[in-house]
């Protein structure tokens, strides 16, 4: 009988399963995408973009200066004369075509996103790129229905949109910005983040292959100065920015007193509230996904966990156990759960804040996990014994670091959850439907997820309260910032 020979368990391992990179072809050096072509920057300056998982340079990209931004805005203005007058159903055809091409080339874009940004390939492949295509499909559908979107008015495009996007979801943020702008009849000048410009440049080439008229989409790479030049440019009708609250404030000052429209999608310090009647094992997955998705480089990351005190010890034990099964390492490995931190600057910021947490007396927990020797990595981290007054409970860390606090009553959970200058998102786990509604009424957040977290859909508006910004992206609401003549 089998029991006579007890079989010792054997270590079950996943050998590396690396996504192939041969679909991606990179140039050594990229110019600026202006008026349908790559053009050498007048600034004559270039930046090097590196693979954060290996620290190896990937390519040089132009650093657009004042004159380059001006050329791009002029090209967008010229293109607007025809694009803005094109019937919506014609604009829709281009957007549908772009969406289909993005689907066809999703693997290539996903690999490039991972190479340049450090996110795990499984996320780029299963989350980012499917959502990118979905956004283009969704807004393609609106292009010829704008008059039905806002009955009783004849909406008109604004003109040239200046769009500045962050490094955490380079292609997805591009899609959030470009798709509604184009659907509404605007043309765009987009500045990708300095550390993750490559997918935007690949997208530029894709728009040419889709026969999008030159000048409708212009991509000006560069750093903060390039973005500032775009914000200052008098030929821009609208600024859409996603990024840090500090830069958002600078932008708002810069556009004050100008006719430019502005939407800001800024930082967050989202509360994730776990009630004692929550489906515990699924809530654990929700918390893990909430904070470790994309290394925690997520503006809506559930970075403040509030657990009802009656189940806190058990919940934290389960969380620690789950943390030890996370696979940190090579982002190109299909089994990697946590990839590379996007840049050394971000790694320093995370490290500094984690040290402040230890100094201020919170208790740190990190699972035993070996980080790669090269590249920028940070182990998944929990803090228990966190107080509202600790910096790690107040400041956005934008990394794989979770601050855990407890509460006793629903009122206390709401009070603590709302005790932040931010207000982008929140999560609630409970099996009581009535409590979900009660919480959603009271939480000051643009998005409240119930019994799930980090769910995105192009049909659902996204945006924040207070220092998390204003304006909504996604859904019918996402058209509003790009249209004239719509009462708001």
């Amino acid at each position, binding site marked *: *009988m089998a*029991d006579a020979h007890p079989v010792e*368990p*054997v270590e*079950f391992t*996943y050998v590396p399963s690396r996504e192939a990179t041969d679909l991606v072809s990179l140039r050594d050096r990229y110019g600026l995408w202006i008026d349908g072509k790559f053009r050498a920057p007048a600034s004559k300056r270039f930046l090097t973009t590196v693979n954060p998982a290996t620290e190896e340079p990937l390519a040089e990209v132009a650093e657009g200066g004042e004159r380059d931004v001006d050329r791009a805005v002029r090209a967008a203005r010229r293109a607007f004369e025809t694009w803005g007058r094109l019937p919506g159903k014609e604009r829709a055809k281009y957007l549908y075509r772009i969406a289909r091409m993005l689907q066809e080339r999703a693997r290539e874009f996903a690999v490039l996103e991972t190479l340049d940004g450090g996110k795990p390939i499984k996320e780029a492949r299963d989350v980012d790129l499917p959502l990118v295509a979905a956004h283009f499909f969704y807004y393609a559908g609106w292009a010829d229905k704008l008059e039905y979107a806002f009955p009783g008015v004849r909406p008109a495009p604004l003109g040239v949109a200046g769009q500045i996007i962050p490094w955490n979801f380079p292609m997805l943020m591009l899609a959030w910005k470009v798709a509604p702008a184009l659907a509404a009849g605007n043309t765009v000048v987009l500045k990708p983040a300095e550390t993750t410009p490559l997918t935007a440049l690949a997208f530029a080439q894709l728009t040419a292959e889709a026969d999008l008229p030159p000048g409708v989409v212009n991509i000006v790479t560069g750093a903060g100065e390039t973005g500032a030049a775009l914000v200052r440019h008098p030929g821009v009708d609208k600024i859409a920015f996603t990024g840090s609250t500090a830069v958002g404030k600078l932008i708002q000052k810069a556009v004050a007193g100008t006719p430019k429209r502005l939407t800001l999608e800024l930082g967050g310090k989202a509360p994730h509230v776990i009630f004692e009647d929550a*489906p515990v*094992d699924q809530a654990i997955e929700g918390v893990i996904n909430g904070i470790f998705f994309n290394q925690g480089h997520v503006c809506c990351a559930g970075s403040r966990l509030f657990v009802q005190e009656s189940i806190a010890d058990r919940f934290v034990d389960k969380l620690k156990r789950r943390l030890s099964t996370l696979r940190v390492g090579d982002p190109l490995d299909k089994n990697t759960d946590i990839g590379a931190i996007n840049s050394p600057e971000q790694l320093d910021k995370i490290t500094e804040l984690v040290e402040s947490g230890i100094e201020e007396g919170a208790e740190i927990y990190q699972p035993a996990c070996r980080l790669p020797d090269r590249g920028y990595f940070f182990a998944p981290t929990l803090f228990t014994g966190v107080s509202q007054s600790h910096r790690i409970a107040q400041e956005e860390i934008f990394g794989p670091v979770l601050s855990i606090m407890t509460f006793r009553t629903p009122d206390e959970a709401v009070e603590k959850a709302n005790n932040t200058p931010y207000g982008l998102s929140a999560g609630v786990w409970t099996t009581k439907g009535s409590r979900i509604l009660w919480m959603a009424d009271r939480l000051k957040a643009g998005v409240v997820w119930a*019994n*799930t977290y980090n769910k995105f859909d192009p049909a659902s508006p996204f945006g924040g309260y207070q220092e998390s910004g204003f304006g909504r992206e996604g859904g019918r609401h996402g058209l509003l910032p790009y249209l004239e003549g719509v009462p708001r």
Partner: protein
Amino acid sequence: MSTPAPLTLPVLGTHVTPQALNAYLEATPPVDEVAVHERVASLATRSIKRESKLHALELAVRMTDLTTLEGKDTPGKVRQLASKARRPDPTDPSIPPVAALCIYPAMVPVAAEALRGSGVAVAAVATYFPSGQAPLEVKLADTRAALAAGADEIDMVIDRGAFLAGDYMKVYEEIVAVREACGSAHLKVILETGELVTFDNVRKASMLAMAAGADFIKTSTGKVGPAATRPVTLVMLEAIRDFAELTGIGVGMKPAGGIRTAKDAIRYLVLVYETLGTAWMTPDRFRFGASSLLNDLLMQIRWVRTGAYQSPDYFTKD
């Protein structure tokens, strides 16, 4: 598993009252169905290649309870299957035997004879399988007969009617009684999750069966659809994890019915590994109840080793 599991458990003590049992079951956390499906879908993207795949496939062979449970089962059929169980691939002696041969009690004498000395266990479904709709004395007699004929393992069914009627005490007492009848024989408790339907029920029934002394909990009889699914298996694995934390007792898991491909089997192994860790990656704690799975495992093993697929004609159908 060489020592018999304790007949009464630290969780409930020696004198179990319906109130104590209810309180214990009420502490079972609720299950969010959507999130379970999501977790399973996410783990299905794990990429198991090369040595890891080969290892997983061989492990799956060793974890297989090769099964035939048909009214038309005959000594001839059972002998053939026993031979397949001992040596799944006659052309390749490196392929290990399966864990057990799972059959009806009437076939136990034949199976015990055919498997003597092989290390392959004889598992008998008992307790008025598959419905369990019979008096307890009948179920116990069925169990004792199977054991007397040489069964090493008993796969019993719970009384789903009693469970759905809320008579948890009846379900519990029956499992305890069968457990006692089993002595040191291995007891697998079939929940028939296809009839319990909700994940909340599945989790509660899992906690109930483990408290009553199950060595293994098992999804299905294979006679009711849906049989084993990965989501239902994950819910049971999470219950096993909670029970191990509560009592220190490591209960095994057996999904049964509907697992036909090696790819699916590997996805089950990933669920087990990521939920319970290395300690459960053994036939002592995880089994597949399957019949056609074995040949697909053999085909895939040959493919990983040689890089070529062979026709199904090269694998014996027993």
